C-alpha cells in the first residue's frame, strides 16, 4: 500500500513558529499604528528612566586618574606614565634611526650627532630584505614602494608612521603570543579571555581611544598603545588556534622525551606552529596600518595626521596623496611579511667553511650602503634627503579632477543623491525611528528563540534593553538604518558580482585583484573621494560604507558557490538542469549559509566604518563616540561604544544561528 504522493507542504497548524510570527507581527503593527497616544513611554523613553551608568563610568575613571593608588606605592597616573615612558624609549630610538637622527639638546638648538638613515639606505635595505625573503621581483616591488614615498614627498611622514609600526608590531605580537599561550595552557584563562576578545573585536576603535587619550595624553606613545590594543586580539586567536593545530604526535613526542611544561611550549609547540604564527604577525602588521589614521586622532603624527588634516580642510588632493602613501606602505609591508612567513628555510650546508661575507651577504651589503650613503650625504644633502625640488605631486591634478566633475556633473550627482535620499533613505530612517522599543525588543527575542532557543532570545533582549536604557535608542536606530541600507546595497551589488566571479573565470581574476586592493586600503581612503563628490551627510556615509563593506559579500558568495560539492553538481547535470537551473536550484541554495556569513561580515565591517563616517556628519552612535573623544568623556564614549558592539553581537549571533539552521536542514552541518 505504498503510495508515492507528491511532497505536501505541511499545513499551517503544523508550523507553530509561523503562526506565532504572524500573530506577533499583527499585534505589533496595531501597536505601532495606534499605540502612541496610550503608551507614550514605549515610543520615547522618559528621561527619568535613563540609566546613569555613563556618569558612574566617568566618575570611576576620574577616581582612577585622581585618587587611585596601588597599595599606596604609586598612583594610577604614575602607572600609566611609566608605561608610556617604557614604550617611548624604543620608539624614540627607532625614530632617531629612520627619521630625526640622534640629537643632542632639544628644540631648534639641538645638534645632530648622527644623521638618520638616508633614503638611499632605507630603500636599499627593503630591497635586500625582499631579495632575502623571496626573490628579485619582491625586492623590486618593495624598493619601488619606498621610492614612491620619496619621490612624492611623503618620506618624512612615512618614516614617522613606519617607526610607530615598527614598535607596535613586536609589542602586539609579544602580548598576543603570551595571552594565547596562557589561554592554551589554562582553561580558566581561556574562559575568561574569550568573551573579552569577542567584545574587543566588535567595540569600535574610537571607543577605546577615549580612555587611552585620558590616561596617556595626546602623544605618539598613546597612539602606539591604542594600535597595540587594536591589533593584539587576532594574534591571541591565531596563537590559540596554531597551538591547538600542532599534531598530537609532536606533543606526545615532547612528553616522551621528558620535556618540562616550559620546554614543551618553547622547544616543541612554538617552533612547530611557527608557520601559522607568522600569519598572525602579518595580521598584526596589517591591522596596525589600518589604525594609522585613527591613531593620529590621539597624536600619532605621520601619514595619518596628514590625511586627517587634509580631510578637515577638505584638501582632497593632499589627503589622497597621503592616503595612497599609507596604501603603498601597507602593500610593501604586507608582501614582505608574507614572504618572510613562507620563506623556505635555507637548505643544509655541508661545504667548506665560508667567509663572513658568504654567510651574511645581505646584512653586510646593507651595512655598506648605510655607511657609504651616510658619508655621501655629508658631501651633498641630496644623498641624505630626497631633494624637495625633485618631488612630484599629484595633489593638484586630483583637486582639478574633482573641480571638473563638480562643475560639469554637479546637477546629475545631486539629482541621484536627492532622489535616493527622499525615496529610500529618509523614509526608512523615519520608519525605524517611529518603532516602539518594546516591540523591537520583543521581535529580537522572537527571532532569537525561533532561530536557536531561549538562551539566544534572552541574550538578544538583554543587549537590546541595555541600549534602550542608555537613552541612546534613537541614535542606535540611526546606526541600524545606515548600516541596514548600506548592507542591503552592498549585498545587491556584491552578491551578483560574487556569482559572476564564481561562474566565469576571467571575471574572477579581475574581481580578486580589486577586492584584494580594496582590503589593503585603510578605511579613511574611501571617505575622501565620496566627500569630494557628495559633500557631507548620510548619503556620503552610506556610499563610503558600501565601498568599504562590500568585499566579504563578494568573497563569501563566490567562495560558497565554488565549494558546492562536485557530486551534487554532477547529479544536477545528469538530471538535465540548464546552467541557470543549476545555479539557482542547486548552487545558490547550497551556498546560502556561506553567503549569509558573508553578509554577516559585511555588517561587521559596515558598523566599524560607520563610526568613522561620523567625521562626515552622521547623527548616529558613531557621532556620539566621536563627541566623547573630542571631549575626553570616558563614560559617554564607553556607553556608545558598547551600544555599537551590542548591535554587532546581536546581528552576528542571529545570522550565525540562521546559517547553522539552514546548514542543518541541507545536511551540510558536520
Amino acid at each position, binding site marked *: 500500500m505504498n503510495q508515492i504522493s507528491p511532497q505536501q507542504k505541511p499545513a499551517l497548524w503544523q508550523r507553530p513558529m509561523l503562526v506565532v510570527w504572524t500573530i506577533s507581527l499583527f499585534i505589533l503593527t496595531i501597536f505601532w499604528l495606534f499605540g502612541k497616544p496610550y503608551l507614550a513611554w514605549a515610543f520615547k523613553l522618559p528621561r527619568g528612566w535613563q540609566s546613569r551608568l555613563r556618569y558612574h563610568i566617568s566618575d570611576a575613571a576620574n577616581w582612577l586618574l585622581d585618587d587611585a593608588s596601588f597599595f599606596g606605592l604609586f598612583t594610577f597616573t604614575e602607572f600609566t606614565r611609566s608605561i608610556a615612558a617604557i614604550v617611548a624609549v624604543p620608539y624614540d630610538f627607532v625614530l632617531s634611526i629612520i627619521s630625526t637622527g640622534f640629537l643632542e639638546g632639544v628644540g631648534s638648538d639641538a645638534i645632530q650627532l648622527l644623521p638618520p638613515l638616508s633614503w638611499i639606505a632605507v630603500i636599499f635595505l627593503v630591497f635586500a630584505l625582499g631579495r632575502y625573503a623571496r626573490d628579485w621581483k619582491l625586492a623590486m616591488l618593495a624598493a619601488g614602494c619606498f621610492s614612491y614615498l620619496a619621490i612624492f614627498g611623503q618620506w618624512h611622514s612615512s618614516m614617522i608612521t613606519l617607526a610607530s609600526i615598527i614598535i607596535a608590531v613586536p609589542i602586539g605580537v609579544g602580548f598576543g603570543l603570551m595571552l594565547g599561550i596562557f589561554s592554551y595552557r589554562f582553561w580558566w584563562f581561556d574562559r575568561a579571555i574569550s568573551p573579552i576578545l569577542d567584545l574587543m573585536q566588535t567595540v569600535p576603535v574610537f571607543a577605546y581611544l577615549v580612555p587611552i587619550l585620558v590616561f596617556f595624553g595626546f602623544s605618539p606613545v598613546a597612539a602606539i598603545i591604542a594600535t597595540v590594543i587594536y591589533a593584539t586580539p587576532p594574534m591571541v586567536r591565531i596563537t590559540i588556534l596554531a597551538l591547538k593545530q600542532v*599534531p598530537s*604526535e*609532536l606533543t606526545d*613526542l615532547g612528553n*616522551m*622525551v*621528558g620535556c618540562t611544561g616550559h620546554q614543551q611550549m618553547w622547544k*616543541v609547540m612554538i617552533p612547530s606552529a*611557527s608557520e601559522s604564527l607568522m600569519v598572525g604577525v602579518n595580521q598584526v602588521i596589517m591591522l596596525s596600518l589600518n589604525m594609522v589614521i585613527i591613531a593620529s586622532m590621539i597624536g600619532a603624527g605621520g601619514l595619518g595626521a596628514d590625511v586627517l588634516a587634509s580631510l578637515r580642510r577638505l584638501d582632497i588632493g593632499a589627503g589622497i596623496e597621503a592616503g595612497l602613501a599609507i596604501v603603498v606602505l601597507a602593500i610593501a609591508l604586507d608582501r614582505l611579511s608574507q614572504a618572510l612567513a613562507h620563506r623556505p628555510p635555507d637548505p643544509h*650546508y655541508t661545504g667548506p667553511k665560508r667567509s663572513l661575507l658568504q654567510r651574511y651577504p645581505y646584512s653586510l651589503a646593507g651595512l655598506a650602503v648605510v655607511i657609504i650613503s651616510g658619508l655621501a650625504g655629508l658631501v651633498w644633502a641630496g644623498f641624505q634627503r630626497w631633494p624637495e625640488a625633485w618631488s612630484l605631486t599629484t595633489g593638484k591634478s586630483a583637486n582639478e579632477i574633482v573641480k571638473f566633475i563638480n562643475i560639469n556633473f554637479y546637477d546629475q550627482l545631486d539629482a541621484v543623491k536627492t532622489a535616493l535620499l527622499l525615496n529610500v533613505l529618509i523614509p526608512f530612517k523615519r520608519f525605524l525611528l517611529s518603532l516602539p522599543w518594546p516591540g523591537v525588543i520583543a521581535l529580537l527575542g522572537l527571532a532569537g528563540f525561533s532561530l536557536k532557543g531561549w538562551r539566544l532570545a534572552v541574550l538578544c533582549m538583554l543587549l537590546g534593553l541595555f541600549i534602550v536604557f542608555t537613552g541612546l535608542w534613537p541614535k542606535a536606530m540611526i546606526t541600524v538604518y545606515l548600516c541596514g541600507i548600506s548592507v542591503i546595497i552592498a549585498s545587491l551589488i556584491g552578491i551578483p558580482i560574487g556569482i559572476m566571479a564564481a561562474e566565469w573565470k576571467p571575471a574572477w581574476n579581475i574581481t580578486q585583484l580589486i577586492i584584494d586592493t580594496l582590503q589593503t586600503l585603510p578605511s579613511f581612503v574611501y571617505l575622501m573621494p565620496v566627500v569630494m563628490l557628495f559633500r557631507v551627510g548620510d548619503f556620503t556615509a552610506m556610499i563610503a560604507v558600501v565601498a568599504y563593506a562590500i568585499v566579504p559579500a563578494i568573497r563569501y558568495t563566490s567562495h560558497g558557490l565554488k565549494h558546492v560539492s562536485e557530486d551534487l553538481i554532477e547529479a544536477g547535470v545528469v538530471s538535465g538542469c540548464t546552467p541557470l537551473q543549476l545555479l539557482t536550484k542547486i548552487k545558490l541554495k547550497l551556498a546560502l549559509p556561506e553567503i549569509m556569513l558573508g553578509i554577516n561580515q559585511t555588517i561587521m565591517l559596515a558598523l566599524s566604518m560607520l563610526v568613522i563616517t561620523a567625521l562626515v556628519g552622521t547623527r548616529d552612535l558613531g557621532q556620539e563616540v566621536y563627541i566623547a573623544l573630542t571631549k575626553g568623556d570616558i563614560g559617554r564614549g564607553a556607553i556608545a561604544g558598547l551600544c555599537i558592539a551590542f548591535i554587532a553581537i546581536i546581528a552576528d549571533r542571529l545570522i550565525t544561528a540562521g546559517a547553522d539552521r539552514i546548514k542543518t536542514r541541507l545536511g551540510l552541518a558536520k
Partner: protein
Amino acid sequence: MRSKSPKLVCDHVWKIFGDLGKAQHIIDAQYWPPGQSDLDKYNLIGAVQQVSLEVFDGEIFVIMGLSGSGKSTLVRCMSRLIEPTNGRILFNGEDLLEKTSREMIEIRRHKMGMVFQHFALLPHLTVLGNVAFPLEVQGIARAKREERARQVIELVGLKGRENYFPRELSGGQQQRVGIARSLADEPELWFLDEPFSALDPLIRREMQDEFLRLQSMLRKTIVFITHDFDEAIRLADRIAIMKDGAVDQIGTPEDIVIRPATDYVAEFTKNVVRAKVVSVRSIMKPVTGRPAIGEVAGTAKVSQIVSKIKHSDGIFAVTDEDGERIGDISRDDVVEILMQG
C-alpha cells in the same frame, strides 16, 4: 616457560574517553566494570577495556588490531601519555600511576623511548638536532649530546645526513631519524606505534629487516604496534590481538596461527603461509624407533626444512636444543602443512 620477571605489566587497564561528568557513578567501584550499554548511554568510548598483559625483558611484544581498536591508546597508557581510567601499570614492578609528574619525566627521559607513525620530527631542527633533542631536553652539553647523536645516526645508517632537514629526506629516512632519536637516551623499554605504516610496502620490508637487525644488537624490551598481521607474524616473539578495545588473544605467532582463540582471530590467520610460521616440533609425530635418514631441529620452521626433506621417502629425526631426539617427521607431514596454504 619463562623464568624472567616481566618488565611491564598491564593489570585490568581501562581508558574511557568522553565526558565522564554525568557518568561519575559508572566508574564507582560498586558498578565497575561498565558494560557496553552503560558506555553507549552516556556517549562514552571504551577505547581500552580491561586489558591485562605482561611484556618480558628482551622480547618483541606486538599489539595487532585494526584501526580504531585502541592500540595507540593502550600504548600511550603504558607510558602514561594518557592517564588510564582504571587499572594498574607496573614498570619494573613499580606502579607507574603512583609516580609524580616529576618522576614520570625522569622515567621517560631515561627509561622509555617512542617511535611515531608519522615520524613526529621537529621541522626546524636538522637530523642531528632532532636525534640530539631528547638529550638537549635533559640539559646535556652540546658537544656531548651531539657525539652521542652521531653514534646513533650511524647505527641507523644515516651517516652523512646529519645536517639535512627532515623535509629533505624520504619517508623511510625520516623514520630512521625517528628511530635514532628514540634510541638516543638508551631506553630500557621501546615503544613503536605503527612505525612503518606510513611507508611504501618495499621500504616497509626493508625497515622491518633493519629493525630486526637493530634488535639483535640491542636486545631492548619492545612494544610494537601494527595493524598489519603479516608484519606482526614477521617481527613478534608474542602477539596480542586487539578488537574494540579488548584483547582477544595473546600468544606466539605459531600459537595464534595454529590455535586461533576466536573467529575474529581466525579470520586474520586464514591467508598466512603456515609453513613459515609453524615449527617442526608442533607437527612432528612421536618417536617410532625406526631408523632416521636425517635430522632436523625442532625449532626450525617447516618452510626451512622443505628442500632437505622433499626428495626423501624415509623418516627424519626431530631434535631439541641438546640434540636429543624428541620426535619423527616424514614428507607427508610436511606436504600436509604446505597444502593448507
